[in-house]
C-alpha cells in the first residue's frame, strides 16, 4: 500500500475530530483515536513547518534541471 498522502492523513484527522466531537465512540476506541489524532496532527504540522522554501527549478531543453535564475534568464 502506498504511503498515505498529506491529504489522506488530513482527512483521517478530520474524521477523528468529527467522531470524537460526536462522542458516540466507545471510550477505549476514542482514546486510541485520540492518540492517533494527536500523532497525525503533529506529523502533519511537522511536515508543513519543516518544509524548506522550495527553490524554483527550470527544466532546460536538454532535459536537465537547474535552479531557476531570473537574472540570467
Amino acid at each position, binding site marked *: 500500500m502506498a504511503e498515505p498522502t*498529506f*491529504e489522506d492523513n*488530513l482527512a483521517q*484527522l*478530520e474524521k*477523528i*475530530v468529527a467522531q*470524537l*466531537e460526536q*462522542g458516540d465512540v466507545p*471510550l477505549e476506541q*476514542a*482514546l486510541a*483515536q*485520540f492518540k492517533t*489524532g*494527536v500523532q497525525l*496532527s*503533529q506529523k*502533519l*504540522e511537522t511536515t*508543513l*513547518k519543516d*518544509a*524548506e*522554501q*522550495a527553490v*524554483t*527549478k*527550470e*527544466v*532546460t531543453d536538454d532535459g536537465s*534541471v537547474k535552479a*531557476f535564475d*531570473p537574472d540570467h*534568464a
Partner: protein
Amino acid sequence: MPTHEYLSVTTLSAYLQRKFDQDPYLNRVYLTGELSNFRLRPGHQYFSLKDDHAKISAVMFKSAFNKLKFTPESGMKVLVVGRVTMYAASGQYQIVIEHMEPDGVGAFYQAYEQLKAKLEKAGAFAQNQRPLRQFPTQVAVITSPSGAVIQDIRTTVARRYPGLQLTLYPAVVQGDGSAKDLVRQLHRVAEHGDYDAVIIGRGGGSIEDLWPFNDETVAQAVLAMPMPVVSSVGHETDTTIVDFVADHRAATPTAAAELVTPVTLVDAINGIAQYRSRITAAMQNRLTALQERLARSQKSVVLTQPNRLYDQYVQQVDQLTTRLQQVMQSQLEALGHRVSLCRAALAPRNLQLRLNAQTQVVQQLRQRLTHATAVELVNKRQAMQSAVAGLDHLSPLKILGRGYTYVTDDNGKMLKTTSDYQVDATVTIHTQDGEVAAQVQQLKENNANG
C-alpha cells in the same frame, strides 16, 4: 409668384434626422477606415475615420469603448460596426461606433470565433474541471523565463505556501513557433506526470501577441493534460481559447499562483493545531463527563450508606414483631378468659352439688338393685323349692322306703350285677333305716342272660 412655405432649420434637421434613423442600411454599417484625430478622453470618444478621399465623424460611447481589447491610435486601420445618425446641433452626420477592431486581425477574430464555436460544440470547455489539490507538492509552470509571470507566481507561492516546488518549463510565448513550443512543453510536463497542476500563461499583449493561445493544437494539448491546468493569459479582458479549455482560469499570474495554493501554510498549520485542540477538548469533555458519572455513582446512597438498603426491612420487621406481640397478647387474653370461665364452672360448690346429685343417683340405683335382687331371690327360691319337691319323689331313699335295698362292697362301691360279687366277700346291705353286713355264700346267675 407662387407662395413657398419656409421651413425652419430645426424642422429640416429633424426631418433629416428621421431619414437617417429610419434608413435600414444606415442602421447597421460595416465600415473600414483609418483612425484620425484620435485623442483618448476620459468618457466618450470623438474622432474621425477617413480614407484617401473621404472622411466621416465618429463617436464611440464609453460603454462600447470600454469593451475594446486594444488601445486605438491615430493612423491605425480599423474595422468598425455602427449606425449613421445626424447630429442636429452641428448639422453633421456621424457614425456611432458599437464595435471596433484593428484591421488585419479581423481574420484572427474569425478564426478565433470559429475555433471557439467548434470546441464549445464538442464540449471541450466543460471537459476538464478537475479540482486543485489542497496541499500540492509540485507544480509546473509553462511561460516565458524572462517575463513578470514567473516572478509573480514565485513571489506569491513563496508567500502563501513556500514548500511548493515550482518547476519552470520555459516557452516562447509569442511570435512564430510559439504554439509549437507551448505544445512541446505541455507534452514534457504531461510525460513527467508527477505535477499536481500546471500553470500556463503569459502577460498581456496585443491580440497578435496572444495568438498562440488561440491555437487549436495548443488547445488540444491542454485538454489532454493528465493534471489540472490553470491558465493565465493576457489581461483579465482577454479570453483566449486556452482559457476556455483549461480546468481553471486565473485573471493574473498572482491569481493563478493563489489557485494552485488553495490553503496557505499559516492556515494549514493553524487548522491542524485547531484540530488537535478540538480533539483534546473533545477528549477532555468526554473524560470529565465520565469522571462526573463515576463520582455520582460513588457518592450514591447505595454505596455510601448501604444500611439504607435494609433500613426499610428492619422497620418492617419491627412493625411485624409489634403486631405479632399484640396479636399474641390478645389471643392469650381471650384464652385466659375462657380458662377462667371453665375454672369458675369447676368451683367446689358446684362439684359438691354434682356429687350429691350423683350420690343420689347411685342410691336410687342401689335401691332399685336391692329390690330387684330380693324379688329375684324369692322367685329363685320358690323355683328351687318346687324343683326340690320334684327331686324328692325321685330320691333312692324314697325307693328304699318302699322296700328296696342296695348293696355295696367294702369300698362303698355299689354292686349291681352278680359278677360284682365274690363268694365269701363281706358286703353291706343298705336299707331304709340302716345297714346290714352280710356274707356272700353263693353266686347263681340267671341263665336267661347266658
